[in-house]
């Protein structure tokens, strides 16, 4: 990696100040950023380590929502009694990200800010209609994920927490990429205060909602309702691990399984 300055602020306000430098970068778990630095794909002037900011921690119930601080590690979400009681599908999803090491380092804030097209969390955030809280504002999930590795966050804006409305039902299913074990196609489905939602990750360049499946599930919440709905392969990813057609097929299979998992 290239040399960089290192800062460890203890408040969001200080972190935001440090991020005023357009070439500085926030770091949370570092499980995405550090490999990129080691490969010299990124040359920040400074790293602003968020891990010392207490206000970014914690998982708590706020009314009809579960609010998860940006620094919550995947393993913490997976093990949280609060999450398990309110949104078991979210705990299940967190428990199936990467491997043990990844789950003990990677954070929800890092994952959602990064918006890797093959990541798990964006499906849950979009599929539950969550609200992203930042150092500046609140952003609805529907307005947050803009494209591959692109979000509504501004360079000096820090994701502080995510508020997940508690659904009546929710389920998640995914097919892993055999090599990276990231998501090849995954579906997060839910029914609740945000309506019926089907969010698809891994298959395309960015997480997206599957409107046909949402309509079908709104009419009849059952695996059978989505079994016959085909996802168009246009605009889906195609690579050595699977064609767009294969991913399109998996979208249907995973949606079906997600509904089955939701019960």
């Amino acid at each position, binding site marked *: 990696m290239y040399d960089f300055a290192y800062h460890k602020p203890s408040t969001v306000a200080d972190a935001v100040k440090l991020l005023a430098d357009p070439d500085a970068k926030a770091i949370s778990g570092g499980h995405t950023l550090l490999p990129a630095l080691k490969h*010299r794909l990124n040359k920040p002037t400074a790293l602003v380590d968020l891990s010392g900011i207490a206000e970014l921690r914690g998982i708590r119930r706020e009314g009809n929502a579960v609010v998860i601080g940006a620094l919550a590690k995947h393993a913490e979400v997976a093990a949280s009694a609060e999450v398990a009681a309110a949104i078991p599908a979210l705990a299940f999803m967190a428990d199936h990200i990467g491997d043990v090491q990844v789950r003990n380092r990677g954070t929800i804030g890092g994952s959602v800010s990064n918006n890797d097209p093959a990541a798990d969390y964006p499906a849950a955030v979009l599929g539950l209609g969550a609200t992203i809280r930042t150092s500046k504002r609140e952003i609805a999930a529907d307005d947050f994920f803009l494209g591959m590795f692109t979000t509504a966050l501004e360079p000096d804006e820090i994701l502080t927490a995510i508020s997940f409305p508690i659904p009546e039902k929710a389920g998640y299913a995914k*097919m892993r990429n*055999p*090599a*990276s074990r990231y998501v090849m196609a995954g579906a997060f489905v839910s029914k609740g205060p945000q309506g019926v939602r089907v969010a698809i990750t891994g298959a395309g360049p960015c997480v997206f909602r599957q409107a046909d499946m949402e309509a079908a599930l709104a009419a009849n919440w059952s695996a059978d309702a989505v079994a016959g709905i085909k996802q168009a392969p246009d605009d889906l990813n195609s690579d*050595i691990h699977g*064609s767009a057609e*294969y991913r399109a*097929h998996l979208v249907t*299979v995973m949606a079906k399984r997600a509904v089955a998992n939701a019960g």
Partner: protein
Amino acid sequence: MNVVTPFEGIGASVRRKEDFRFLQGKGNYTDDLNRPGQTHAWILRSPHAHAKIRGVDIAAAKAMPGVHGIFTGADTEAAGLGGLPCGWQIHSKDGTPMAEPPHPVLAFERVRHVGDPVAIVVAETRSQARDAAEAIIVDYEPLPAAPSLEQAQAAGATPIHEGVAGNICYDWHIGDKAVVDAAFAAAHRTVALDLVNNRLVPNAMEPRAAVGEFDRFTGDYTLYTTSQNPHVIRLLMAANVLKLPESKVRVVAPDVGGGFGSKIYHYAEEALVTWASAQVGRPVKWTADRTEAFMSDAHGRDHISRAEFAFDKDGRILALRVATQANMGAYLSTFAPCVPTYLYATLLAGVYTTPVIYAEVKAVFTNTVPVDAYRGAGRPEATYLLERLMDVAARELGIDRVELRRRNFIPADAFPYQTPVALQYDSGDYQSTLNECLRVADWAGFEARRAEAAARGKLRGIGISTYLEACGIAPSAVVGSLGARAGLYEVGTIRVHPTGSITVLTGSHSHGQGHETTFAQLVSDKLGVPVAQVDIVHGDTAKVPFGMGTYGSRSLAVGGSAMMKAMDKIIAKGKRIAAHLMEASVEDIEFDRGTFRVAGTDRTKALVDISVAAYVPHNYPIEELEPGLEETAFYDPKNFTYPGGCHIAEVEIDRETGKVDLVNFTAVDDVGRVINPMIVEGQVQGGVAQGVGQALLESCIYDADGQLVSGSMMDYTMPRADDLPPVGVATHTTLCTHNPLGVKGCGEVGAIGSPPAVINAVVDALRDFDVRHIEMPATAAKIWQIINGSHGKAAA
């Protein structure tokens, strides 16, 4: 002085001595070594698959902080460094020697694959070396690239090496074509299959590393390197590349974290750091990162073949005809030419009585990383071809696949058995390994398991492979006549210390195999010394006599045999000393596990009494016998060894996603005498993991421009623990008849026998679909395409 210890000799599952070190993080790997004054190297590599180098501008880079030296191909040419040599010469059908183009240590005028080294930068820190490497400006003129066999052989393909027509390295054959063609013409039935043996990246856990150190006072060079065979590296590097007397060069291969063949070869970086250390006057360390490993470690396999069996009306094989194209990569790696020839085509009889065989092999240069031996080397390719063809034949002839194999087995009473492709098998019992494997895997109960799986929506299949391999390489004169430029004996020294502990020096090298334990058991068994008092020394040319290293499952069969020979010498000398001490005649002295006895009496001397007398020769036959108790033996094997056996795989396929799960795997192997059953089991399991990786997961992919698409763990699928079921390992022994231990070898059997068993199981799982063959790796996407493409053909 009899110490009571648990039995630790031949046949005991002694826990691996070396694991105490490894499991505590106390291994001593090349990258752990830091020499006083050490500098660091970064290798600048080609981003192009094929390009002319019009110029290299190092001016800016040289001025960067910490830089001690930058060397390019022009510098190594000017210094008179030789290219990397090839250790095996093949002759084509027409008698001409293979094309053997130069393989410079730094690309000179042309780069031929992504990752080809272009310059070495030596700096105070690794980061500074890398910074400077980024500042080097190379003026490339891209040339059309030919990464695939098809592209390289296409009419009008750009020659990768000057003077190598059609990019053909050699066009070799074995067997009598006319006789085989006649057998085909007269056959009752013939069965043909086209198949690909997928290219693999070895991916040892420890990436390659090298530290070069020049001593300006003595003029000696030391190279610490991740090698399976330090003496071979010293010979090739000193004699061919650096042109130094071997006496001035020491090569040390300390703990090595896996090799699988990829650390046999002499690599450019080894010579570069050694040479550069004299240029900059400081030790130079280089450690590959994983990205470099992908683009610079020799790859494995990469064959395209057409295979045909001719059968008589009873399903007996009359002949086998094979045409193979082998991808050599951009240059010839150290042993590359022998892999698709003498380690492959000579194995095409397998376990069958095929009377006549003809195989032709075209080796082709391409714009890819050089290809060389990878666990099994040639034998997995032969086994995969035979065992897939066998299954296809069984189906098309309407004969049960187990029965068809049995009908063609070489019978247990037919040994020694001469095959039509040069090898003479000494022993084996294929019906027994098959029967045992069928029993352990509950072959008979499979249909019930398939029905049960179907009820869960899964397609279940079972597959078998009955295989044989040749290892324990190799008789020197035989390999010499086949083109080897080296002998393949091994050396062993037994040093009995005055107080009775023992040091064993071996020319073989351990990089995961557990030699420190297995070899100590041999000595313990024969000389009656506890394993804890036997130390195995390997991997240092300054300590060990000239040995050939570890590959081809040769360490025990050849290296262990050398130790046995040396121990025989120790015992012979010990008897003379014992006779003197006990005032008896030498003929009357018997030796058994540490005790010398005057036959028929209770007069005895322990080995330690003899060693004390040998080193403190106060009462000693000094007129007739030299003091000391140390013996060295070189052992040259009389033949290859021939492990074989049966593997059975059982898979379940998720019909919606196409994902294949390996649910059962059973291996029953004949590896000859087993010294340490636990280590054998581990070796077989590791081999099976790599075989399963090849069958289901791994695939090295270049795009049409020669860019390495599967260039990291994000895209190259290594097998993980959860890809594997518990692997049932059993052995059924027939002894090797020509080495003193009766051992055959177990390092490669797992990787050789397993891939066809897995693919046969996958094809079987899809028996209701119209599938004749599936290329490796059988990924979910591929299976889904088959299931999807044959909609309607199968009853749901």
